[in-house]
């Protein structure tokens, strides 16, 4: 991706970029989502995760003023989410829907020209060039969008979303269906936008993507299940554990681990593998090593167990199936 600045540095903003209080949306009897509350600060990349049908896209559409909420309230880019503020909010934000939604008979540049005019950007030609350079499509600006691959169309949609230098950028599954190289390019672009201070609301199924890019994540399954930094969620959901492997099984592991300060419990996981629940990994690991060596055990390894964001997600969305919680 090109390193040219994409958006002016937005400087210090007062208050949250998004503030959502008890928001809900129903379609007749069907609840899309309800009682959703969170705040997103300016400059933050906020991941919005959830299974299919959880209400992620509906939430984005609501915050983007495309759908009216049936309950709750919100402010978007500093403006209350009310019918009267629709156009003003849309002027401050940008939404990249899951499907690029390009005019396939028109060229890349013609597509962007239309949206530059709709956003009322000044010096549209310059802005279009800048957005196209940012997504490495400047050489293909005269091609019809119908001739581009899915990945390139996604990039055009991203360039379109960047045209207006939005305060809040909603990206709905931006890497859906992209190959690894195109995915990496989109990730680099998002990272670049973060450096410029753009607030990004990212909905995704890709947990690795959320873990890599997002400052905080929220997991939605009709209601908001959890919210926090990935590390914080791991700590909340999973006990800190040390995995001890020895060459042969310990003679009396119960006595060995019971005497160790900071070990809350243990279990054997294989013939010579022990899982210790600990309160402070950094304090217990050296002490356990010393105790094991002193007891004459041949220690192969002592590792802190790592839980991925996928573990967190599965634990929250389907705890009965995973059984990974503490």
């Amino acid at each position: 991706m090109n390193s040219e600045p994409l958006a002016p540095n937005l400087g210090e903003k007062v208050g949250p970029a998004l503030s959502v209080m008890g928001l809900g949306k129903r379609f007749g009897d069907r609840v899309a989502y309800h009682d959703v509350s969170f705040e997103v600060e300016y400059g933050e990349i906020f991941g919005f995760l959830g299974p299919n049908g959880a209400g992620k896209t509906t939430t984005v559409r609501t915050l983007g003023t495309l759908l009216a909420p049936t309950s709750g309230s919100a402010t978007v880019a500093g403006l209350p989410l009310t019918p009267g503020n629709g156009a003003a909010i849309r002027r401050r934000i940008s939404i990249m829907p899951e499907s690029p939604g390009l005019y396939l008979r028109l060229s890349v540049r013609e597509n962007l020209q239309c949206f530059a005019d709709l956003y009322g950007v000044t010096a549209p030609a310059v802005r279009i060039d800048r957005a196209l350079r940012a997504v490495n499509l400047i050489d293909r600006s005269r091609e019809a969008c119908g001739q581009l691959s899915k990945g390139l169309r996604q990039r055009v949609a991203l360039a379109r979303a960047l045209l207006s230098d939005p305060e809040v950028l909603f990206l709905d599954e931006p890497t859906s269906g992209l190959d690894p190289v195109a995915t990496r390019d989109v990730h680099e672009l998002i990272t670049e936008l973060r450096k410029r201070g753009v607030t990004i609301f990212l909905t995704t199924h890709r947990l690795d993507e959320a873990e890599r890019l997002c400052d905080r994540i929220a997991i939605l399954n009709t209601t908001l299940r959890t919210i926090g930094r990935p590390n914080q969620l791991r700590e909340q959901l999973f006990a800190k554990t040390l995995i001890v492997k020895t060459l042969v099984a310990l003679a009396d592991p119960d006595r060995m681990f019971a005497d160790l300060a900071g070990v809350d419990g243990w279990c054997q996981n294989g013939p010579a593998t022990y899982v210790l629940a600990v309160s402070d990994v950094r304090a217990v690991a050296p002490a356990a090593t010393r105790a094991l060596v002193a007891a004459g055990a041949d220690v192969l390894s002592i590792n802190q167990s790592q839980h991925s964001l996928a573990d967190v997600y599965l634990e929250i969305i389907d705890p009965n199936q995973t059984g990974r919680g503490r």
Partner: protein
Amino acid sequence: MNTRRRHVRAIFINEVRELRRNRSLIVGMAIFPAVFCIQPLVQVLLLSSSASTGLRSEHVLLYMLGIPALVPSFIAAYSVVGERQQGTLEPVLTTPILREELLLAKALAALIPSVAIAYIVFGLFLICVEFFASPGVATALIRLPDLLAQLAFTPLLAGFSIWAAILISTRSNDVRVAQQLAVLANLPPIAVTTLIAFNVIPASLTTALVAAATLLVLDAAGWRIVAAAFDREKLITGTH
């Protein structure tokens, strides 16, 4: 240029560009002028001078008002449901454009080419009659009141046709269904003009003024009615 004009202009240019490159729409637009021009032209050209006196009691030219009634409906019926089907409506609605601006731009993008086509076809028809019809036929056929009616009613009928078609388009899930329904919606005004053309309804200044006033009111109300029926939420979620 103020914001409203810029929004309308952006969508208008986009629509015209799309229209120029959409073969199925262009073919559809070409069919109606052909139907409403070739058949009457052949009949008129085959008329002898002696038979032309019968034309004086009729208003055959009004038959060609079918062109502005049907051509724009074909474009306008595509305008909303077509965008929905190709997935471009949602990105447009995420911009600051207001629905009234969007609808006006789409209406203008259907109106301007349709009225131009109607006038051009009508002009070609008159030229052919003037140069190739039997002596006396042109004089019997081409009369000032009919020409004025053609000039005045072409945009008025096109306006009605467009708002009816856009209204149908906002409520449809399929382009073809929308286009067929739009043609049906335009049958009443075509029927009235045909009845006037063949003197079933007497053509008079009063008839013309009443018809023009009715169409003017419908055209002016059409924008508001269609804007009220344009439901962002239903269009995006497809909950019709």
